[in-house]
């Protein structure tokens, strides 16, 4: 699948050309940009429609679509469209930050294990295997149910409005780093025997410098691909936890917790359950296609190996 480089073409132009060949990835990038823009302009939509995201209107429950409420209203008369847009801000924020945090932890663990090898490598990789082997969701539920006051967080922090947001980012990062760690470790293990690393060592470069300046840049492609793919997974995980009532806490809307009440109202208002799920689905599949496209563009050898 890899396109041969043309004469005088830079690496970036070649990468861009390969990416554009993956049509689904290009479409996905557009879809994600549109979703992000829509989510960012949530306050604008709210102002244009003249409705507040949290405004309760008990006389107008379960309204159908209208000019005032393009997607209708929910069980206590709040505008569904505006809440979906605000929910998108939260879900995208959690997906991006938690995936980034996981990548940072995974890169550090993988670099240390791959560069130093030996006992440290064995210890870190056994820990990684251990985390991978755990039944994830049941344990995440325990973590999400913890009383933050009991682990010594100050009262003001533990009860602040956005604590559920930070908590979910931390929880996901705590378990999400394993893929990147394994990937980085494997590549770092091979890179540290290469001549440019040995040359740097011979010149007396410190371990930190070799890891960050010489090895890390060569790992950028697999890390970027894995992180893109993990954004989708994080969004799915956040939505599951929020759906179960353990993730983002109402009244902050997220695509997951918008579905929490939908199950009880499934006979009265099936459409309430429909929209948030569609948005999660579209976002996650777009991130997966984007990751696939980036892999074709940045790491063509891996694609050849995978077919």
């Amino acid at each position: 699948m890899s396109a041969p480089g043309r004469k005088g073409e830079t690496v970036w132009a070649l990468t861009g050309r390969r990416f554009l060949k993956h049509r689904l990835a290009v479409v996905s990038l557009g879809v994600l940009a549109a979703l992000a823009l829509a989510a960012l302009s949530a306050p604008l939509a709210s102002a244009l429609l003249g409705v507040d995201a949290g405004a309760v209107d008990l006389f107008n429950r379960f309204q159908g679509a209208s000019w005032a409420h393009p997607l209708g209203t929910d069980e206590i008369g709040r505008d569904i469209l505006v809440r979906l847009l605000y929910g998108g801000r939260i879900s995208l924020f959690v997906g991006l930050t938690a995936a980034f945090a996981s990548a940072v932890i995974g890169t550090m663990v993988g670099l240390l294990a791959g560069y130093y090898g030996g006992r440290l490598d064995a210890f870190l990789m056994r820990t990684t295997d251990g985390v991978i082997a755990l039944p994830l969701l049941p344990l995440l539920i325990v973590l999400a149910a913890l009383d933050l006051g009991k682990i010594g967080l100050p009262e003001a922090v533990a009860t602040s409005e956005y604590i559920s947001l930070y908590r979910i980012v931390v929880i996901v990062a705590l378990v999400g780093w394993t893929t990147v760690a394994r990937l980085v470790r494997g590549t770092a293990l091979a890179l540290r025997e290469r001549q440019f690393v040995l040359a740097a060592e011979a010149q007396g470069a410190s371990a930190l410098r070799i890891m960050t300046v010489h090895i890390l840049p060569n790992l950028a492609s697999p890390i970027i691909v894995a992180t893109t793919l993990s954004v989708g997974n994080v969004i799915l995980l956040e939505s599951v936890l929020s759906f179960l009532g353990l993730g983002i806490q109402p009244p902050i809307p997220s695509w997951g917790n918008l579905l929490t009440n939908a199950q009880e109202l499934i006979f009265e208002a099936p459409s309430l359950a429909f929209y948030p799920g569609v948005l999660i689905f579209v976002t996650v599949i777009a991130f997966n296609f984007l990751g696939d496209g980036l892999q074709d563009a940045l790491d063509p050898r891996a694609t050849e190996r995978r077919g």
Partner: protein
Amino acid sequence: MTRFLFHRLWQSALVLGLMSFVVYSLIGLMPGDPVDLMITADPKITAEDAARLRELYGLNKSIFERYGNWLAAALSGDFGYSRLHAKPVMQVIIPALGNTVTLLGLSFALALAIALPAGIAAAYRPYSKTDYAINLAAFAGISVPPFWLALMLIIVFAVILGVLPAGGLGTLGAGGIWENARFLVLPVASLTIASIGGHTRYMRAAMIETLRQDYIRTARATGAGEVRVVFGHALRNALIPVVTIIALDFGYLFSGALITETIFAWPGMGRLIYDAIMGNDFNLALVALLLATLLTLVGNFLADVAYVWLDPRISFREVER
């Protein structure tokens, strides 16, 4: 072989032991303790009573002492009482485990029966229209939120069409086997769809890789038919990585069971864990979580064994590394 297996078993036991302590401590960090719950139930309990009760149950001791006591009791077969069910923990867990095994077993078999042929079909002509369609479907399966899929199935089959029950477990003895089997259809379907996508992509990748090998070209050159090439020569080799990856997904299956069982009110392990954690049933939550971990570790262990057994080229030392 024995040395490798022993090493692996020892490692799994170590992980399980560590997990038992971690989970025990985490559960201690959840809101409230058993005495708090008694105070809520009976407002007449005074502060002195509460202190005496904490003393009686050992709640004022250090976490290590409490864990030691729990472990000693657990090792002698006493896992304590479930608060929610007012029964010994094991009596609650065993029927739930049976229900989960039925659900997971059926959907696991069904997912493989669909995903493996689909993966092979996609791999046979990579980048063809068939491959494209299968790939698209697989990506959709990976990306759909499992609980939302379950809700949509309920809306279509229980609300709009009204042909299948929205949840629960049939009453035994009423309506016969087929009547009861109807309760399984939607949970099994949603769990199956959730895992088909991943399996299909593994199978496709492994098969493409295998079909590119020299021995496949040799087989074709000797005049073997396409059916014989794909199923006689390629399939067994392609299955090696697939078996391992799928067996390693065991923990993931449990997560799926938790979501599916909660939505369809299926009385299995997943829902049991969820209810126990939400209802502050500490004993039950602890044992159920550890059992889920144990089963996952057993799955991983079997995956290792299967890997070595399927592929004699892999030396045990390599796997240990």
